[in-house]
Structures are given as C-alpha cells and as structure tokens.
C-alpha cells in the first residue's frame, strides 16, 4: 500500500512539475480560450462584469429587504461571496466535462492530462478577476478602505489552485468513467449554492450556526471573502481548508497514479 502510494506520488508530482515548467503554454491557451469565448461581442470579457454586477445588485437588494439588514452592510458581503461562489461552481461543473470535451486531443496526441487542469483553473481565475473589478468598485463607492488583509489573497489563490487541480483530476476522471456524474454534480451545485452562506450569514441560523461550519465550501468561500472585506478568516476556517486540501491532494495522487493510463479508454 505504502509502496504503491510512493510510486503514485512520484508520478503525480513528476507530471505536475513538468506541466508547471511549461506554464507559458497553458497560460496562453487559457487566455485564448477567453478571447475566443467573447469574440465578436461588443463588450468582450466585460460582459462578465456587467452580468455579475446586475445579479449581485438584485440579490443584495432583495436580501437586505428579506433579512432587513442595512444595504451598506449587506452589499459588500454578498458581492464578495457571490463572485467567489461563481469561481467555485465554475471550477466544479467544468471539471466534469474537462476530458470529455477534449477527447479528440487525448485520443490522438500524447498530452499531459494535468495541462487541462491548470488551463481550466487559469481560465476561471481570469474570469474571476474581471468580476472582482465590480467588487472593488462597490467597496470603493461604499467608502470601505482596502485593508492589509488583501495581502492574504495570493495565499488563497495558491490554495485554490491546488484544490482546483485536485478536483479537475478526481471529478474529471470519475465523470469520464461514469457519465451520470455530470448530471448529479449539476443538480448538487444548485443546492449547494443555497446551503453555503453566500446570501445569508451563519449567525442568522442562531443556535444552528454550527451547521454552516460542517459544509467545507463555507470555509473555501470564507478564505476569499473575508480578506476582501478586511477581516482575517478564523482559525477554524484555516484548519478546515488545510485539512480538506490535504485530503484532496491525497485522493488526487491515488486517482491520478492509478487511472491516468486508463482514461483514454473511457472516452
């Protein structure tokens, strides 16, 4: 068991390092991906800015009436939470179809599968960065100063990268082998959007607030949202994220080492 793990370990990290070394390649492809997606549109990638601005505005307005919180307090919370959630949900849902969409390439050219994972992450990070423009505008208009906690963001991005690659491997392999998985994930992600504190705050649950902490995505959202709002994420959040990241990484090494050679036959 340990011996196998050691072998898989080497395999995963060897491939990961060689892909990271060729970072100019996947950075370029991710950039072209985005350019092509918004080709022949007037606003280009700023469509994302417009769309996220409208949806944040509507939901924040509705929420502040529903929960009778001041808009000025509620708006930044929702704005930061929602852009983070759109990053998470895009990473999860797109992971499912990652290899299926690239099957021509995988079947005809020897490529590193991890390449697709990094590319997926970078593409969505660029989209996220565009949406972040809205958030900064909102924060600026509300007169919220930029805090030192923003310095935590690079760390958060690295944690997200590790998790995104892990999910792209685990979920991507699983969804390629069992084609029911994308449907299940699509359904689950919609439910999770409500179960994760994005539009509501855990303390609104009063004595049941601990239920929100049981959801790992709560913590993943928090490590992006809290620094944006000028708050340090709690130690519970950090420890949960670190533990889940390690579990993710462990699973990824196993799945990747064991099945990377079989994936092509599943397509």
């Amino acid at each position, binding site marked *: 068991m340990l011996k196998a793990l050691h072998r898989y370990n080497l395999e995963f990290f060897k491939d990961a390092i060689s892909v990271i070394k*060729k970072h*100019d*390649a*996947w*950075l*370029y*492809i991710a950039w*072209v991906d985005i350019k*092509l997606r918004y*080709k022949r549109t007037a606003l280009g990638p700023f469509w994302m800015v417009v769309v996220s601005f409208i949806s944040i505005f509507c939901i924040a307005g509705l929420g502040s009436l529903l929960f009778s919180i001041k808009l000025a307090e509620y708006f930044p919370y929702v704005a930061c939470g929602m852009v983070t959630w759109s990053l998470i949900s895009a990473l999860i849902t797109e992971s499912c179809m990652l290899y299926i969409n690239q099957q*021509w*390439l*995988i*079947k*005809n*050219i*020897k*490529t*590193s599968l991890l390449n697709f994972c990094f590319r997926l992450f970078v593409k969505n990070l660029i989209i996220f960065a565009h949406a972040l423009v809205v958030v900064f505008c909102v924060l600026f208009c509300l007169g919220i100063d930029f805090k030192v906690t923003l310095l935590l963001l690079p760390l958060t991005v690295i944690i997200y990268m590790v998790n995104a690659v892990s999910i792209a491997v685990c979920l991507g392999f699983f969804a390629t*082998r069992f084609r029911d998985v994308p449907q299940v994930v699509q359904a689950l992600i919609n439910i999770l959007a409500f179960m994760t504190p994005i539009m509501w705050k855990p303390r609104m649950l009063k004595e049941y607030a601990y239920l929100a902490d049981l959801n790992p995505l709560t913590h993943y959202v928090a490590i992006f949202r809290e620094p944006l709002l000028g708050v340090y994420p709690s130690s519970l959040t950090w420890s949960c994220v670190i533990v889940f990241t390690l579990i993710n990484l462990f699973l990824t090494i196993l799945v990747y080492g064991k099945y990377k*050679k*079989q994936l*092509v*036959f*599943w397509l």
Partner: protein
Amino acid sequence: MKNVSLDYPVLGHNPKFSKRVLSLASAGRISSGTKKQYVRSIDKLNLHLKPGDKLAVIGGNGAGKTSLLKLIAGIYDQSSGEKSVVGRVTTILGTGFGLDEEATGYQNIFLGGIALGYSYKEMEACFKDIEEFTDLGDFLNLPLRVFSAGMKARLAFAIATCKHPDILIIDEGVGTGDKAFLERAEMRLTEFLSKANILLMASHSNDLLRKFCNKCLLMNNGKAVYFGDLEKGIELYEEQAK
C-alpha cells in the same frame, strides 16, 4: 517492444443496471455476465526499430495499425508486455489537432504547437519557418473557419513537422493539398528522414509507402504477420487481400 498486447475495455456495453440488480437479487441464478468485455487489438507483438528505420505499417481494416501507432506514440499503454521508446515522438494521426475554428491562423500555430507538447517560446522560434512553409500570407490573420480544407491541412502539417522530432508517426497519408503543397510536403519529409530518424507510416497507398519507407510490417488481427523488406510485404499483403 517485447510481447506487447493491448486490450481495449468496452464500456457502455455492460448489462443494464436493472438486470444487474436482478442478478444480485436472485443470488446469481439469473446470470447477466457482468464481466467487462475487452477487444484485443494488438496480440503479443514484437518490434525493434533503430535510427534510420522507416517502417510502413500495412494491413486490412481493424488489423491494429492505428492501435500500434498510438501505442508507440504513448497515447495508449500496453496491457501486458514491455515497451520502450527513446526520443521525442510527434504524431500526425489526423488533421486539425487542437486547432480552433474561431482562432486566427497565428493563434492556431501556438494552439497546435502547445497541443503537441511544445512551449510557447519554442513555437515562437519556429514561427517564421511555418509562415514560409505554409505560404498562407495574410490568411494567417484570419480565423481558421475561412480556410479551405487544403489550407487547414497545410497549416496542420507545418505545425506537426516544425520541430524535427526523433520519431514521426503518420497515419493515412498527408491529407489533402494541392500539387505544389504536396511537393513541398514531400521535400520536408525527405529532409526530415535524411536525419536518420525513425518514421512509422500507416497507409493504403503503396506509392506513398514506396517513396518513404524501407521496411514493412504486415499486420493481421493484431498480430505481426511479416516484418522485413518493403516489396515483399506489399506482395504478401496483396496476396492476403485476394
């Protein structure tokens, strides 16, 4: 390659889920044969190529030609046996690999090159060469969807051969292209072959094979029937086809 076999698992052909439940419920009395199905596409094949070998892979449909090429290219992994491939491999298994219809010709040079495993910088280095070889001029600034089939093939061929790999694998000819291009493609291939590298080519065109190959592997049902002289191999294959 030593004693290499390749088994393809056949997915989506398993008995239905409901049948499997039935089989479990009846404690196996209603057997549904839940065993995975496999197709053996290559059967205990031995092959040794040295630098300078230009191998023609021939055989009928389903003989295992493409599987063999993909196995050497590292796309598939053998189910049993041993394989070792030394050097950089490039495959031309079809045209249009990794190319995007919406992207411009220039962007596609990078997209294609990256798909083949080169870095952005490496592609920048052979940019001029591709520009010259394809002779597409201003077309490279336009999206790929306005290219004709022949122009796309030209671009794909140029990208695939721009880096002089140690081992080149070609499946089913060079594709479409006008006369002038075919001549240039041949010249490029000849130049490439003069560098004592290995070529593997699967094709049904004997003329093409005669032009580039000096050895022959005749396959039938995943087995190597004959390995050696090209003319003798083609003869045997034609006999077999009768």
